[in-house]
């Protein structure tokens, strides 16, 4: 009989104890698995979100949060200059503003209005109903608007609806004239916040709305750049910085690295602390159970040693007991942790101000490998003390003690 089989028989001889141990490891393992998903999930998801946009360099006027950034002036000329760089394949001007939208018979709602250069919309939203802004042959007297699913629901909009839009003037009563828009489509926006109402229009439409607040402006909130694949985003960012040293150009890697150092550091630390605690619990649980089990079987082990079973064989059997407990519990922990991660992700994604597509818990093969490695280390570590007790057991003294007791 192999050590593995002997360990299995020893565990199943006490089914209640084995089940409790496996359940304990499964619960702890699920938490550990979730912490590992969390430790890199947000970063992976953020990176994925950036890559989805199809642009790998972002040009902005200053560092800092988007809402506090200064717009880039003379955006059209800048886009032209950038597109002539050999490192650059495609350039899109991105505009964003807060506006108020009003439909007859309904209370006005605050909406984020965006505009991207023609052709860039394919990376920014996906039409679910109606048509896109740049659909050929679609002619209307009014400016065109694509609205998010949420906005369509809130204002009861469908393709063909008409609404009025004016810019939001913070802290003042606005008398800026409204611009009439025609909804041509409903879309899912890649970067939309979970709690945000979003709409997109053409550059003309955007400028017409803004004209009331800032006539004649030619600004961009950001310029998005797709680099030449052969040269890479880092080269493109360097070329842009050389061309326009007054602007900040960041590759996706740099944006992710900044995010990793700043905003994400909290999640990483929390995940590290909670992972360590869960590992500690798993270690204590298995070590305690095995130690108690060994102490209850000291005479049995001494007898086996007297019969000629080697220390290595006893140690291997105990290691297998630990492996069975941690292995079965750890396997059960995966679906349990997966379900828990889905629920926790749903709760966290409900936080205001986060892109709807951003996830906190992202499954990665790396997380599974880390999980397995940590469980193996924990299983071996937890078995170390009971193995030491069993291997160093004085055979004669233990047998004598058993008879005397």
């Amino acid at each position, binding site marked *: 009989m192999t050590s593995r089989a002997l360990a299995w028989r020893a565990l199943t001889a006490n089914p209640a104890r084995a089940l409790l141990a496996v359940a304990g490891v499964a619960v702890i393992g699920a938490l550990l698995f979730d912490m590992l998903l969390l430790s890199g999930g947000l970063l992976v998801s953020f990176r994925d979100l950036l890559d989805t946009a199809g642009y790998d360099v972002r040009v902005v006027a200053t560092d800092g949060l988007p809402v506090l950034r200064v717009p880039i002036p003379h955006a059209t000329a800048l886009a032209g200059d950038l597109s002539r760089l050999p490192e650059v394949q495609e350039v899109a001007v991105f505009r964003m503003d807060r506006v108020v939208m009003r439909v007859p018979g309904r209370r006005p709602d605050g909406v984020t209005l965006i505009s991207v250069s023609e052709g860039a919309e394919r990376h920014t939203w996906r039409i679910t109903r109606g048509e896109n802004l740049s659909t050929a042959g679609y002619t209307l007297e009014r400016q065109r608007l694509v609205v998010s699913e949420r906005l369509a629901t809130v204002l009861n909009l469908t393709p063909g609806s008409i609404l009025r839009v004016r810019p939001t003037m913070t802290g003042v009563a606005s008398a800026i004239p409204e611009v009439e828009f025609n909804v041509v489509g409903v879309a899912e926006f890649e970067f939309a916040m979970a709690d945000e109402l979003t709409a997109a229009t053409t550059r003309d439409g955007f400028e017409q709305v803004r004209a009331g607040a800032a006539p004649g402006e030619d600004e961009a909130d950001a310029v998005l750049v797709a680099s030449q694949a052969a040269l890479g985003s880092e080269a493109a960012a360097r070329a842009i910085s050389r061309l326009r040293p007054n602007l900040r150009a960041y590759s996706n890697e740099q944006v992710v690295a900044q995010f990793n150092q700043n905003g994400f550091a909290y999640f990483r630390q929390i995940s590290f602390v909670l992972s360590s605690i869960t590992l500690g619990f798993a270690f204590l649980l298995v070590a305690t159970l095995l130690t108690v089990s060994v102490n209850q079987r000291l005479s049995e082990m001494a007898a086996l040693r007297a019969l*000629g079973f080697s220390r290595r064989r006893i140690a291997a059997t105990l290691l297998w007991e630990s492996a069975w407990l941690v292995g079965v519990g750890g396997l059960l922990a995966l679906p349990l942790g997966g379900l828990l991660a889905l629920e926790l992700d749903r709760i966290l994604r409900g936080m205001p101000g986060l892109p709807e597509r951003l996830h906190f818990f992202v499954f990665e093969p790396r997380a599974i490998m880390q999980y397995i490695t940590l469980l193996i280390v924990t299983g071996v570590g937890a078995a170390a003390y009971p193995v030491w007790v069993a291997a160093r057991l004085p055979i004669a003294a233990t047998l004598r003690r058993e008879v005397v007791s």
Partner: protein
Amino acid sequence: MTAIVEGRDLTRAFPMPAGPVTALRDVSIAISPGEYVAIAGPSGCGKSTLLHLLGCVDAPTSGSLVFEGRDVARLTERERSRIRLTRIGFVFQRFFLLPMLSAWENVELPQAEIGINPADRRMRTRELLDYVGLSDRGHHRPSQLSGGEMQRVAIARALANRPALLLADEPTGELDEDTGEQVADLFDRVHADGTAIVVVTHNPVLAVRSGRRLAMKRGTVVSS
């Protein structure tokens, strides 16, 4: 005839907080092949200590022990384990069968440990269970057996690897008189089949069947 095991001037002292306690003092003993030796004496006289030394599960504080021509003190832990596994059989007062294994598996276990192939193991296990009269109880766990049956399974386990020496420490200590007599009969058969036996016992029925009786007192052999 060369002894299977020979101890010379064996002394075993145990360190205690109040000072060392000498359980065995200058005992010399030799067990020849096929011999049947009973060791008797009051509790605490050193019988089990002597048995443990002869079985290579303990080491003397002084004196020498030679097992089949090899100085046990010079052997590694692994080599001593190998001797116990292949050349010595142990029978304990409290049986110490593995409770999660059936009688059959308990007997098979030492054979598996030395790498006997499954077919030969099955044959030997069947033979041994038949030998101890438990061929119909092979699939029963120890908890489903009586004390006498457990001890018979333990004897079968001890004989599994055809040892040259069978050591038994109070093998009838947990059994009633009738069952003890059955176990004694079994030891007679084992002895008759050529295995040397050393049995530590308080049971006169068992002691009287041996070929040589040693009486111990305060760590020494007082009569032989």
